[in-house]
């Protein structure tokens, strides 16, 4: 891997940027790997990277049915934060946030990680109590969090409609200053390039059609490019998790829903932080290019079709315009949907399964992007050691049988 640096930029500039090396190879699959990761999205590529980096396992293939980074990693609204309520989730997301803080250097790839702060609005007394409970819980867990009065909020985000007569009056907010955004595609590309440099084979256009087992032990996967042997298979396919689980005869507590998002025409800088509101189903930030990025709530019905209903988008835009009257005449440039894998307790599953050598990383629902490095880190540990990392032990598949659910609907339900 040729290191990116100021010098390499100058050197390539002199040759009109025509001699940049490819960022990763496109190898044909080998007959056998130590570990196969299904899904070259953010979490899958991060898993492969940490398998190689932390555990020295480099005979790894990442299989992708279409192209690298084309799923949820390329469709989310790029928000990174760690202000969750319960200890289990707080620790997992906070570890992830700490990885984010050095990730550009670690991967030698500019992820444009910007700690511009994340604000969660409270519109009624219930919201305010929920936010204050969460802020205190965060601080007890060593996570930065503060409560903002409406006046302080207005000073930070002057364009927010804080009038007491507003349809959604704002009584206060929470702020996590270390939260922010990152360039989502670069995260996939950065992990892919760094994993590839350590010997990981990333095989695109290679869909998995079956999971072959022998006596309760995984022995490989059937793919569109033939059978590939491996005694350890990690499935990281987000919205399609139930489909892959079915191939191994498992049932998951996952429901796949469409989740829609939009971007506007590029504007001058107007919003320098992330504003989210659970109560009115809206969250918004502005990219470095100037586009406003908006996300809606999920469509209620199950769907894999990468599109949702217009009513959900209308609801979202109505809320944004109420909160930010200045945006009422902004034009939307693009609108799209992804497929999110929602768990009943709004917490992920990072787990071994009843099939030996088969591991699932799924259930991130509407908010997996922020966890990309942390999820890869603990999932790589789970696969390499065949036992969970202490941070993902609570996120087992068994919790649905034992009843130890981790209810994060308050922190994860709508906002991402």
């Amino acid at each position, binding site marked *: 891997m040729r290191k990116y640096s100021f010098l390499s930029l100058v050197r390539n500039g002199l040759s009109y940027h025509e001699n940049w090396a490819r960022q990763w190879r496109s190898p044909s699959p080998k007959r056998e790997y130590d570990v196969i990761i299904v899904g070259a999205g953010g979490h899958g590529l991060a898993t492969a990277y940490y398998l190689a980096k932390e555990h020295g396992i480099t005979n790894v293939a990442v299989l992708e049915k279409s192209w690298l980074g084309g799923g949820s990693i390329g469709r989310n609204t790029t928000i990174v934060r760690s202000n969750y309520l319960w200890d289990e989730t707080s620790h997992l997301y906070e570890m992830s946030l700490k990885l984010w803080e050095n990730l550009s250097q670690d991967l030698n790839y500019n992820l444009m990680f910007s700690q511009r702060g994340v604000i969660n609005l409270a519109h009624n007394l219930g919201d305010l109590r929920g936010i204050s409970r969460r802020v205190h819980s965060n601080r007890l867990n060593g996570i930065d969090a503060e409560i903002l009065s409406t006046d302080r909020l207005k000073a930070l985000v002057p364009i927010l409609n804080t009038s007491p007569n507003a349809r959604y009056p704002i009584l206060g907010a929470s702020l996590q200053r270390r939260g922010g955004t990152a360039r989502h595609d670069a995260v996939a590309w950065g992990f892919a390039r760094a994993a590839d440099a350590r010997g990981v084979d990333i095989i695109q256009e290679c869909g998995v059609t079956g999971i072959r087992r022998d006596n309760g032990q995984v022995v490989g996967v059937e793919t569109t490019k033939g059978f590939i042997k491996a005694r350890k298979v990690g499935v990281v396919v987000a919205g399609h998790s*139930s489909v892959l689980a079915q191939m191994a005869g498992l049932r998951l*507590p*996952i429901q796949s829903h469409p989740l829609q998002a939009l971007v506007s025409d590029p504007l001058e800088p107007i919003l320098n932080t992330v504003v989210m509101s659970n109560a009115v189903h809206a969250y918004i930030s502005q990219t470095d290019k100037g586009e406003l990025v908006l996300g809606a709530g999920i469509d*209620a*019905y*199950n769907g894999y079709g990468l599109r949702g*209903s217009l*009513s959900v988008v209308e609801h979202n835009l109505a809320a944004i315009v109420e909160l930010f009257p200045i945006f009422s005449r902004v034009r939307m440039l693009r609108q799209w949907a992804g497929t999110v894998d929602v768990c009943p307790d709004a917490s992920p599953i990072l787990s071994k399964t009843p099939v030996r050598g088969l591991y699932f990383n799924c259930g991130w629902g509407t908010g997996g992007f922020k966890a990309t490095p942390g999820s890869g880190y603990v999932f790589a540990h789970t696969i390499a050691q065949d036992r969970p990392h202490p941070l993902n032990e609570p996120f087992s598949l068994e919790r*649905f*049988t034992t009843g130890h659910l981790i209810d994060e609907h308050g922190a994860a339900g709508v906002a991402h």
Partner: protein
Amino acid sequence: MLWIECPWCGLREETEFSYGGEAHIIRPENPEAASDAEWADYLFMRKNSLGPHREQWLHSAGCRRWFNVERDTMTYEISSIYKVGEKPPRGDA
């Protein structure tokens, strides 16, 4: 936007309805005897099918009655609508 034909009220827009998830889930017949695993399966595990999916809808802004729909989760096309208690028009899905 889906268009859904309520068996009592006729064709209406999706916004009049609420979604009720997978249909034909049977509560354990003898709850006292059901194991933790059986409860987990009943409460949480779902087919989440890619393709034809049998699901419940409620006409919440209309007649407020429940009914079943078979809808493709990839194309969103509705292939059949039948009342609660009726057998699905086609075989296993």
